[in-house]
């Protein structure tokens, strides 16, 4: 039983995905039913694993077998770290599935949507359960595929198709580093399993340069998947996908996979101070940068997307300052409140007939009360209001940063200030004041299948940070390790002050306004980084490509081939044959000639 459990958790969404995409796609109801059944089997399995399974359990299937020298395994492992992720992925996954049944109700591609959602669940659970780097990479890529399919769900829309490509390709760049890192680690330690690498870690630590390089290469994978600078550009565009997808994949789970991966290989990063500080700085810069950009966005999903970037940056910075436990804790709480916020925004978008501009909302507090209250709880949890989930987990990262590096701490603190500011701006503009469009006047709460998940997530966003709730999930030791930093009253006090400051300033600035009083164009335009990348690609890759294309056409093919061949005996002979002007006659002669030549040579 214990050994079939992880397989059950992993494979039930795969079975559902295959059944839906291959056979059941004609019936929307059946597709939804299969997909829901699969996610609940996985959820049930995860709960069972959580309560029963031994501390660490692993089981495997050999995927590639070339004898003892080389085997790639699909190996599943359940330990404390896995359990946290399993609960997050299947729990939020189940809620998003339920929510989607209504959100995607009238969509003609509903079956395809649920099929892809199941494929995503399978891929994500594969990352979570992987006991070795190769398997993690396999599912890493598969997660990229399902994300590609879901972002591009409305594929006749040019922008959605472009966003899907952008997401996939940006991730591929990160995966290039990831794979290089895997090759390096494998060539040095001769192993791919996390446990085996840990056992052979001395082979790596003997060579500090290679250790740092392989650590940073692996980190590249996380930079792509968790959308850290400079590969962050895909995540805001990924909001082209249906909103439940944004909640599940681009907020709670897939983008967090990078952080999970870093926590998993932390033993490999820890010996290299250089690698850790690079990670800390990239994380902290991303956190601050994305928070700045979020203050000037007007699309509700874009604000949340930049907020996700920013929070992921905090988690990565947490890894960089050595507090992987704190990062995982924040990943855990963030998954709830960010999924809540996205699903809440989805409820608004649904009710307002696809209106996403917050300046065309307003007054939703009255027309959509359930959405408002849950959204407000999510906002407070995210901004670090005292006694909600985000407060505890962010505090853990802040404490660790404070102990390690004052600059990182400073970045994180300013990020918190900005977070309180942009989220309050969002809530005040969208929910308070008067309705600024017809659609907003007719806002209404959505059916229970959409509001109940909001309610559940709101409760979780309140309680997830308390030891009573979080301690059994993380395990006693790990939970306290997350709070290892010395007890310090200054840090929480500072955190509460920036929260209050950000909230109050934003409230004062935005309350009752009908258009943005502050316009900072560079921030609204993402600091022109996307444009810069486009120019960079056009200036390097595209130029190189057309140059090579020209070279191939006119030099290699034109001059070289014809020139060379004309000069040789063989071609001269063949060209004379050309005079026949009859391909069939030539072909016969050619065949006969070859046979004759061979015969002569052998003779």
């Amino acid at each position, binding site marked *: 039983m214990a050994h079939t459990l992880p397989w059950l958790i992993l494979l039930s969404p795969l079975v559902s995905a295959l059944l839906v995409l291959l056979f059941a796609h004609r019936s929307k109801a059946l597709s939804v039913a299969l997909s829901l059944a699969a996610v609940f089997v996985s959820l049930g399995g995860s709960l069972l694993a959580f309560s029963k399974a031994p501390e660490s359990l692993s089981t495997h299937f050999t995927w590639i077998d070339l004898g003892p020298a080389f085997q790639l395994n699909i190996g599943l492992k359940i330990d404390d770290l896995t359990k946290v992720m399993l609960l997050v992925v299947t729990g939020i996954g189940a809620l998003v599935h339920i929510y989607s049944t209504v959100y995607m109700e009238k969509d003609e591609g509903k079956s395809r949507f649920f099929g892809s959602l199941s494929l995503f669940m399978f891929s994500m659970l594969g990352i979570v359960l992987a006991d070795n780097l190769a398997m993690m990479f*396999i599912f890493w*890529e598969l997660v990229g595929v399902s994300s590609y399919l879901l972002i591009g769900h409305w594929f*006749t829309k040019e922008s959605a*198709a472009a966003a899907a490509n952008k997401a996939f390709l940006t991730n591929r760049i990160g995966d290039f580093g990831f794979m290089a890192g895997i090759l390096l680690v494998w060539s040095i330690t001769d192993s791919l399993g996390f446990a085996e690498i840990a056992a052979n870690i001395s082979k790596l630590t003997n060579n500090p340069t290679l250790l740092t390089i392989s650590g940073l290469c692996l980190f590249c994978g996380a930079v792509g998947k968790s959308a850290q600078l400079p590969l962050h550009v895909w995540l805001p565009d990924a909001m082209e996908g249906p909103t439940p997808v944004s909640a599940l994949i681009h907020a709670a789970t897939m983008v967090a996979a990078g952080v999970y991966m870093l926590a998993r290989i932390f033993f490999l990063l820890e010996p290299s101070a250089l690698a850790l500080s690079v990670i800390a700085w990239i994380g902290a810069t991303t956190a601050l940068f994305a928070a700045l950009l979020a203050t000037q966005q007007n699309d509700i999903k874009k604000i949340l997307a930049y907020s996700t970037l920013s929070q992921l940056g905090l988690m990565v910075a947490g890894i960089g300052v050595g507090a992987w436990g704190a990062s995982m804790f924040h990943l855990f709480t963030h998954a709830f409140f960010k999924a809540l916020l996205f699903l809440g925004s989805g409820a608004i978008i649904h009710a307002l007939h696809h209106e996403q501009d917050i300046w065309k909302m307003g007054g939703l507090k009255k027309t959509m009360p359930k959405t408002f209250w849950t959204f407000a709880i999510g906002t407070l949890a995210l901004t670090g209001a005292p006694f909600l989930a985000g407060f505890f987990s962010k505090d853990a990262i802040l404490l660790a940063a404070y102990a390690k590096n004052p600059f990182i701490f400073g970045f994180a603190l300013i990020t918190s200030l900005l977070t309180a500011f942009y989220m309050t701006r969002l809530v005040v503009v969208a929910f308070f004041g008067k309705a600024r469009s017809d659609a907003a006047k007719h806002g209404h709460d959505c059916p229970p299948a959409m509001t109940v998940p909001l309610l559940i997530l709101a409760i979780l966003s309140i309680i997830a940070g308390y030891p009573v709730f979080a301690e059994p999930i993380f395990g006693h030791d790990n939970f306290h390790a997350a709070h290892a930093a010395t007890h310090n009253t200054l840090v929480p006090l500072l955190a509460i002050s920036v929260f209050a400051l950000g909230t109050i300033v934003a409230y004062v600035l935005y309350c009752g306004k009908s258009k943005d009083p502050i316009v900072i164009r560079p921030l609204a335009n993402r600091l022109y980084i996307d444009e810069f990348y486009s120019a960079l690609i056009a200036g390097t890759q595209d130029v*190189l490509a057309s140059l090579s294309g020209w070279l191939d056409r006119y030099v290699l093919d034109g001059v070289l081939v014809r020139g060379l061949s004309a000069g040789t005996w063989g071609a001269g002979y063949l060209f004379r044959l050309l005079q026949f002007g009859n391909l069939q006659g030539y072909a016969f002669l050619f065949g006969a000639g*070859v046979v004759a*030549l061979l015969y002569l*040579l052998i003779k």
Partner: protein
Amino acid sequence: MLTILLLVPIIGAIALLSGNGDRRMAKLCAAIQAAITLVLWFGYDRTKAGFQFTSASDPLLPGLDLRFALGVDGLSLLLLLLTSIVTLAAFWMAPNVEKRPGLFDACVLLISAGITGAFISQDLFFFYAFHELALIPTFLMIGIWGSGERQSAAWKITIYLALGSIILLIGLVDLFLAIPEANRSFDLEKLQALAGLHIIPVQAQLRPWCFLMVGFGVLVSLFPFHSWAPSGYASAPTPVAMLHAGVLKKFGLYGIIRLVVPLLPDASKQVVFGSWTALDLLLIALLGNILYVGLVTLAQRKLDYIIAYSSVMHMGYIFLGIASLNMIGLSGASLLMFSHGLSVAALFAICGALRDREGSLSLERLGGAAKALPFLGICFTLATFASIGLPGFANFASEVMVFFGAFQNPGNSFIRLATILSLWGVVISAVYMLRAHKSVFLGQPTDSSTKWVDLTGTPRIALGALLTLLLLGGFFPKYFLSYLKPTLEAVLR
């Protein structure tokens, strides 16, 4: 059994040429071929190395060990499976031709017979001769039924491949003469048994190595000998593009694994000029395939050229696997020959189906085709995923092995660098394939596309079979590798 396998398409072709039979008979021949192949596949004993189902004539020439001998081992059986499946799919995806349909189908059968013969010949002479047999109808078909600039494409591919064949022939003779007289044989099994004996003096290995690598290289479109391929494939009729890019091209790689790897194992370490070894030069050439041709692919604006160039690019990975000269790399290379063959055949099949509907394949004129052609759209998506090496497809399993194999050369930092650079190729191929996929199938449907009719009936099964096999190989590479393992171990001994 193997003789029947070879005779079926030949008899079919003769019947068609003499004016009897039609497409249905050709399909029947392909189906019989496929059925026999499956019997062989499941009847083959995977635990043994060496050739099975052998049959041989008496020596044909006095004093020479030259026989008409047939047999298959794991490697040739895998390629035989590829041949039969692609032939089957090629017939079901073939367009209806008005100009001399009998000759058209006969040519396809002859190509298939030639490739089959090359892969199941256990004799060096027939191994070479059957390949030539497959080339001739290829040239004819491009010249007669090709699209675009078919005449010039046909001549270019003819002259180029003829030259390649001649260089290959010189190489084969040179290799044959380099083997000490006592061990000389035309029997591939006997030649393979010489692996690991270092029977050819180290210094004498370089010259035949060069001839063979250039000769085979031309046939496989190794950079810089690749420029026949794109225009040839782009103007070739669908079945030819599928069979040549998918299967016939693998002949060169098959030859390298069969002859060069076991008989000339030390050549690659020899210095050619300056401080460049033969292996270094091969690595530069294959990087040319992966990076340079990859970039050239990016510059293409027509779907058929993109797929044609991408198939040239992917040869680089197979060469990388071979260059690693170890079990992991060679297994990856062999499996990649199989998986690339399936995926490129599927891509060319869909490409042909689009050409039948639109006429032009330039990306600007296409768009939103998935709306009108959902089935072809899904197949193209899956084939794209396979081609850019996503897990779940055999291509990924193979490429992963190629990378691990190439990287497992601790003494050689250049091959490791080449591996990392080749990894970047995976990014490039994703860029051009997804870009093409988006411009053709996604976005707003074009006006003309709304009238299109999706693929129906048996062709769906044919295309589906290619993709299913790719998925099987992706999920259970172990099964396919179990066929290859004993053979490759013998080659590398």
